[in-house]
């Protein structure tokens, strides 16, 4: 009996050690190996020069090659030190001073100094460069004179010494640090002045930054390879190499992931349900609410949308939960207002409209519309199953029952965008947002935001403006958050759109990949310097 108990004890002990060896060892960061990472969106990687593309396909690679003075933590979305390890903001919030680390190297071995930073920011504003991000430094003193060709430099960007730089603003921007971090698309990645001045537009062919990985090879249309930068100033990188594979077709990515040729992938609704049911794959999923709001935007210039009852009726008429369950296969979060659940100012107490067709009918009748005398709305959109015309086809029966007459119109991307930016539509279905800060996210409803810059509704309400303008001047985060929540509730009630859900961003990684986080800005914006692979990886 004792012998048997002793044997069982030994067995348990052995198993404990074995499991420690298997699982415990994985906790220790391992250096080396390659990760095959997809560039999963439509279109190719068009530029490796951070000034020239604001498509996520390119941003994905910028994040490996370049670094900024300050950075955005991909999981918490908070500002963290980058090349500058300290910064100070003046009491009036109009002057920012950045203290850079000494000895930070570009991939070509030269040191990163304040003059490179100044050059990087001026380059973004320079009309001759025609960058995609001139707005990041638009409210810096002297920026306008520089872009008009009246000054050689932006006077508000001052080099104090080789490692200190001061930026003066012309108006309060509580989120200016996010602009320094490059905005949503990482466009302010620091570039080496001397190199860019020498090669000009050819910089895209051989980009040099001070990020964790240096550029190795670009097979245009196929892949971009970056390798470990040994002299990186920050944490890591642990991987030897990352190969960004341009794969816009979801079925091809699924095949590559399942055959272990990809180490990471983003998951679409069609695969989400399959992965979720699978014992092996379900453990490898990472989920979060993405910073995008799927909605049908109403054109507030039109007479037909002036009556709030009509806009609210649209919101009451549709069973959004059923749509999430059936059409999005559970890969979405129900929307209450404009701010998604990952937004720092999200208000969990904000109640959604809910499905109430009777109330919708009542509101439509109040506005003078019935099934016999319906309100005709043409909704334009692309072919995305969730935020395109297939969704409009789905909601049409709900809306037609309460007094609308919906006509879905499918357009190609270019025609669609032209119409949206020109305001040539009744309503459109899209996924809008993408801004990291809650203030920028809500600012699209501000009457001074032009249509082309995100106020596609052309929404204008003096009461809303008062709230948002107050938030723009508020430097205390908690106070600002309250104002933004107030603005969100205001917009929800005003209903310039049908907010139907926030995307549940889902990523999947191979079991040997470590360091993957739930990144609300975009699931592909992983902390590349912190990723590492266990020995079981076929590319270890």
């Amino acid at each position, binding site marked *: 009996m004792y012998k048997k108990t002793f044997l069982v004890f030994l067995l348990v002990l052995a198993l404990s050690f074995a499991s420690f060896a298997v699982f415990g060892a994985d906790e220790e960061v391992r250096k080396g190996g390659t990760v095959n990472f997809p560039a999963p969106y439509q279109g190719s990687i068009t530029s490796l020069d951070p000034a020239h593309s604001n498509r996520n396909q390119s941003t994905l690679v910028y994040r490996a090659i370049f670094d900024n003075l300050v950075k955005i933590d991909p999981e918490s979305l908070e500002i963290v030190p980058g090349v500058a390890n300290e910064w100070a903001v003046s009491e009036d919030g109009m002057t920012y001073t950045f203290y850079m680390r000494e000895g930070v190297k570009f991939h070509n071995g030269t040191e990163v100094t304040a003059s490179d930073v100044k050059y990087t920011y001026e380059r973004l504003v320079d009309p001759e460069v025609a960058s995609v991000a*001139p707005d990041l430094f*638009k409210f810096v003193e002297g920026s306008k004179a520089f872009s008009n060709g009246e000054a050689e430099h932006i006077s508000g960007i001052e080099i104090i010494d080789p490692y200190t730089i001061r930026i003066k603003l012309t108006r309060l921007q509580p989120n200016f640090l996010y602009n320094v971090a490059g905005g949503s698309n990482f466009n302010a990645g620091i570039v080496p002045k001397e190199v860019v001045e020498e090669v000009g537009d050819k910089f*895209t062919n051989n980009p040099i930054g001070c990020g964790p990985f240096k550029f190795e090879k670009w*097979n*245009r*249309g196929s892949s971009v390879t970056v390798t470990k930068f040994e002299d990186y100033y920050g944490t890591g990188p642990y991987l030897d190499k990352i190969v960004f594979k341009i794969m816009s077709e979801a079925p*091809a990515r699924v095949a590559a992931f399942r055959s272990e*040729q990809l180490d990471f992938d983003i998951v679409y609704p069609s695969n989400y349900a399959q992965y979720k049911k699978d014992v092996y794959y379900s453990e490898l999923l990472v989920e979060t609410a993405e910073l995008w709001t799927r909605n049908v935007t109403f054109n507030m210039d039109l007479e037909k949308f002036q009556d709030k009852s009509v806009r609210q009726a649209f919101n009451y008429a549709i069973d959004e939960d059923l749509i999430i369950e059936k059409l999005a296969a559970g890969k979405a979060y129900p929307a209450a207002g404009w701010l998604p659940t990952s937004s720092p100012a999200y208000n969990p107490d904000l109640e959604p409209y809910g499905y109430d067709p009777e109330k919708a009918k009542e509101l439509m009748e109040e506005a003078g519309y019935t099934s016999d005398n319906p309100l005709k709305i043409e909704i334009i959109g692309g072919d995305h199953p969730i935020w395109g015309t297939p969704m409009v086809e789905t909601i049409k029966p709900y809306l037609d029952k309460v007094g609308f007459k919906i006509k879905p119109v499918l357009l*190609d991307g270019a025609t669609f965008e032209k119409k949206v930016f020109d305001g040539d539509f009744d309503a459109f279905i899209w996924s809008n947002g993408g801004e990291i800060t809650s203030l920028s996210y809500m600012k699209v409803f501000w009457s001074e935001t032009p249509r082309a810059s995100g106020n596609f509704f052309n929404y204008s309400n003096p009461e809303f403006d008062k709230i948002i303008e107050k938030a723009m001047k508020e430097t205390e985060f908690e106070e600002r958050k309250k104002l933004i929540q107030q603005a969100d509730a205001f917009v929800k009630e005003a209903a310039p759109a049908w907010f139907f859900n926030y995307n549940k961003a889902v990523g999947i990684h191979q079991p040997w990949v470590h360091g993957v986080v739930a990144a609300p800005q975009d699931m592909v914006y992983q902390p590349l310097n912190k990723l590492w692979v266990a020995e079981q990886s076929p590319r270890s």
Partner: protein
Amino acid sequence: MISYITRRLLQVIPTLLVLLTIMFFLLNILPGDAAILSGASRKGAGEEMIKNIRAKWGLGDPIHIRYFKYLSNLFRGNLGTSYRTHSPVSSLLANKLVATLTLVGIAALGSTILGILLGFAAGMRHGSYTDLFSMGFAILGISVPRFWIGLMLMYLFAVIFRFLPASGFGGGGVSFYILPAVTLGIPMVSLLARTTRASVLDVVSEDYVRTARSKGLSEYFVQSKHIFRNAFLPVLTIAGLQMGTMLANTVVVEKVFSWPGLGNLIVNSILRRDIPAVQGCILIFAVTFIFINLFVDVMYAYLDPRIRYD
């Protein structure tokens, strides 16, 4: 023959000019704004940015000015600069051209040989199992959509058997060519098999074949010299035309397999209204197609002594 080739070569210039002119105006009147599309995202686009991009690429100029600028640049060998990538179109096209032409070349060569062999075997053994199998394969190959064939091959050989890469270019490794080339080639194999079979069946019953056999010539000699050579002429025309179709089909196949070729480039460029890149791709497609046709016509004259162009 030489004067024929010279005449045909001279015809290329006006043909290309007309084609490029039509394409230029069509592309420029398409709805969509290249300035917005090259810089904007779903978050919107700053007015400053749109203004700068428009100025940099001269998008505010009247259309006829842009047309003459395009032509004058073209005559100087400058295909312009891509709006999306800020790189010269010629450099964009250079490596894509190699990727596409190699893929099309391998697919065309393989499917021509296989298609003719299958068709010839089916024609010579009319009504046999070989005939049944070849024609069954041919009907399937023509009927099934290319992207489906691609996805099925990918699932079978990359996910189940795991001995071929699912997609990508992989620096041009041989294994990366197999699945896209097979996907691209299957419809051509099918069409050539059917055409060859029909052509062989026509030739087999000709008097000269019967005469050759009655003269006591060996079956090998009859089949290779009398049947194959005569049956080959209509097949050559189809093969030439199919090469053009195959070039066009790279648009689908390159998309499915993330192949970095012209097909992928033209789709992405059209979607973002990157007009200089689209024009560059069209120029390449047109020139390739024209030269394939010329090559087929010359081969025709060479193979069939009855045809005398000069």
